């Protein structure tokens, strides 16, 4: 049998062009594009050269040859999907999103093509209500152990007693600050917005995401992160419009700007905070002392998923603590699963970015379902962006 140089590559030329076209359409981010086309190639070639490929556990064709997943930026160990592909022959296509609204919009429009996606806790009841996700068949997920889950974080995976989603990890929403540039200690959302308009002017970023951008502006005044009260939202809008001319950008993909030094201050999720701090120690992750968001991301299967068999296989694979632990080490977000925590290295468990002190955790709020569909918050965000 002839051996082509292409044999070890996870991407054929045609697949590369597919990825490029998806990239152009905006379905995937630049990071993902580089990941699947560059990094993925390098790691897979290395693995096959070293003879690390395990024998597939599934019969050829049983699971189809591809599956598409919708998730968040910088959220997975790329090796996880490469390993899954070598195990099963199913290529994993990763779509990266910046907000839950965007995921919902794609599913509402129909034919998203995803077999698995990663919604945040407060959206699951709405997906269920709109009949967009399946109830999960636990018998197909032997690696999932409900008893090992920390119920504080995982309760919203069940809607009316039906399991619709299983947890990926939990985390918080704070801000990242480059302390080499902004030396004055910051501890609150008040500090965040005030600094954005003074010493951090032109260097600060907020998410392109209504829940956190509006929610943290509400915290500036001490209101609830989830407020729907018109007068409180009006105050938040006033603050956001005042800060907008000082912003570097409105974007949920803030790691590149923080790493290049273009931005010094940004709203930030736990996992990005941990990754930035790990690579650039001068970047600190701060939780606003007024409060803010605590969240859990889940895996769910869309009702119109084109490849449910592979979705269950991948989900079960991801629920294996030995696989999940690598995911957590790579993305830096804390786990809800006691079996995973038992395997995590001690320095990770002691990391205050991942496991903040109890007094900082106490005031945090889980996002409320109503914020996802509330027209007033959506329109406020749109006015802020188009102002």
């Amino acid at each position: 049998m002839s051996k082509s140089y292409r044999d070890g590559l996870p991407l054929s030329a045609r697949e590369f062009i597919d990825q490029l076209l998806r990239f152009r359409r905006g379905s995937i981010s630049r990071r993902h594009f580089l990941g699947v086309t560059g990094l993925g190639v390098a790691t897979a070639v290395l693995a096959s050269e070293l003879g690390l490929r395990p024998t597939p556990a599934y019969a050829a064709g049983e699971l189809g040859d591809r599956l598409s997943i919708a998730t968040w930026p910088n959220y997975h160990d790329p090796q996880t999907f490469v390993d899954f592909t070598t195990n099963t022959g199913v290529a994993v296509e990763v779509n990266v999103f910046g907000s839950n609204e965007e995921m919902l919009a794609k599913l509402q429009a129909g034919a998203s093509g995803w077999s698995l996606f990663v919604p945040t806790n407060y959206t699951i009841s709405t997906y269920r209500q709109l009949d967009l996700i399946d109830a999960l068949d636990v018998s197909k997920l032997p690696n999932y152990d409900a008893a090992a889950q920390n119920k504080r974080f995982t309760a919203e995976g069940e809607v009316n007693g039906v399991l619709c989603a299983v947890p990926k990890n939990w985390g918080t929403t704070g801000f990242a600050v480059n302390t080499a540039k902004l030396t004055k200690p910051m501890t609150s959302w008040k500090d965040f917005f005030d600094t954005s308009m003074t010493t951090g002017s032109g260097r600060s970023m907020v998410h392109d995401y209504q829940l956190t951008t509006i929610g943290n502006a509400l915290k500036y005044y001490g209101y609830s992160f989830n407020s729907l009260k018109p007068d409180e939202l009006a105050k938040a809008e006033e603050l956001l419009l005042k800060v907008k001319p000082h912003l570097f950008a409105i974007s949920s993909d803030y790691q590149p700007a923080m790493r290049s030094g273009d931005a010094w201050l940004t709203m930030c999720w736990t996992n990005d905070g941990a990754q930035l701090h790990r690579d650039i120690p001068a970047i600190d992750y701060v939780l606003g002392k007024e409060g803010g968001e605590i969240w859990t991301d889940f895996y769910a299967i869309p009702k119109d998923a084109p490849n449910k068999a592979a979705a269950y296989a991948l989900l079960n694979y991801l629920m294996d603590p030995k696989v999940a632990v690598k995911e957590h080490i790579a993305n830096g977000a804390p786990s809800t699963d006691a079996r995973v925590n038992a395997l995590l290295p001690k320095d990770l468990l002691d990391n205050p970015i991942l496991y903040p002190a109890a007094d900082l955790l106490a005031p945090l709020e889980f996002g409320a379902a109503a914020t996802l569909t509330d027209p007033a918050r959506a329109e406020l965000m749109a006015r802020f962006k188009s102002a």
Partner: protein
Amino acid sequence: MSSAARKRLVTALLLAPAAVWLFLFLVLPFIAIVVFSLGERAPAGGYQPALTLAQYANLPARAAAFWNTLVLAPAGALACLLIAYPVAYYLALKVLPQRRLLLVALIIIPFWTSLLIRTYAWMYILGGRGIPAFLELVGLPDLRLINTPGAVLLGIVYGYLPLMILPIYISLERLDRRLLEASADLGATPFSTFFSVTLRLSLPGMMTGFSLVLILLLGEYLIPTLLGGGKVFFIGNALVDLFLQSRNWPFGSAIAVALVGIAVVLLLAANRITARLSGARQVDLL
């Protein structure tokens, strides 16, 4: 079958594929958009049937985005025109014939790479580690280039310049040189020959390029997102947000209809102006 009837049949058959295509993928979707624009946002987002003009009444809520687009799109098209004309003039009238093909190829080659990739390259050139770092190195003050309207304009000119050069080049290349000689024989200076002969005869090419670039810019979304940092907001960005974030399809549809209206008005105006400037000549831009 008479020969006239056969001619009509042949014409109809030749036009049929394009007509079917346009009906399925232009007319039908546009009708759907108009129907959506008269509806209401469903409670969880999307569309629910209604018959109201409320979405159109709400258009001023995106006035800033319309304004940005209506300033930056024509400004970008004009900047392209001013830069493209000398290039096209050089290519058509001045360059040695044996070099012409190479130079035209050089203008087309960037199209072989995705605009997205080329715009990302600009993100790094204009970003903190690009030109500003170089300026700092030579002792100039810290300068912010990325995420400004200027960066968006630069990206626009860069991305759309070839689309402007080619139509102007073609109209100049077809220019009858004898007219220039006649003008000179009759005592005109090169300066007045250029303005009363060359420029006038290349007007259709200029307007074709201008309209082409302007229409594409009216719907531009990528360049403002990447080089404007989500702060320089075009109407295209407002549309993306309405469909992908707030999921207000009816309002998004109303904005889309308004945008189509604006594009049609601008094109008709451009057509009229060209026709007037180039005398009685027939001009077809659409």
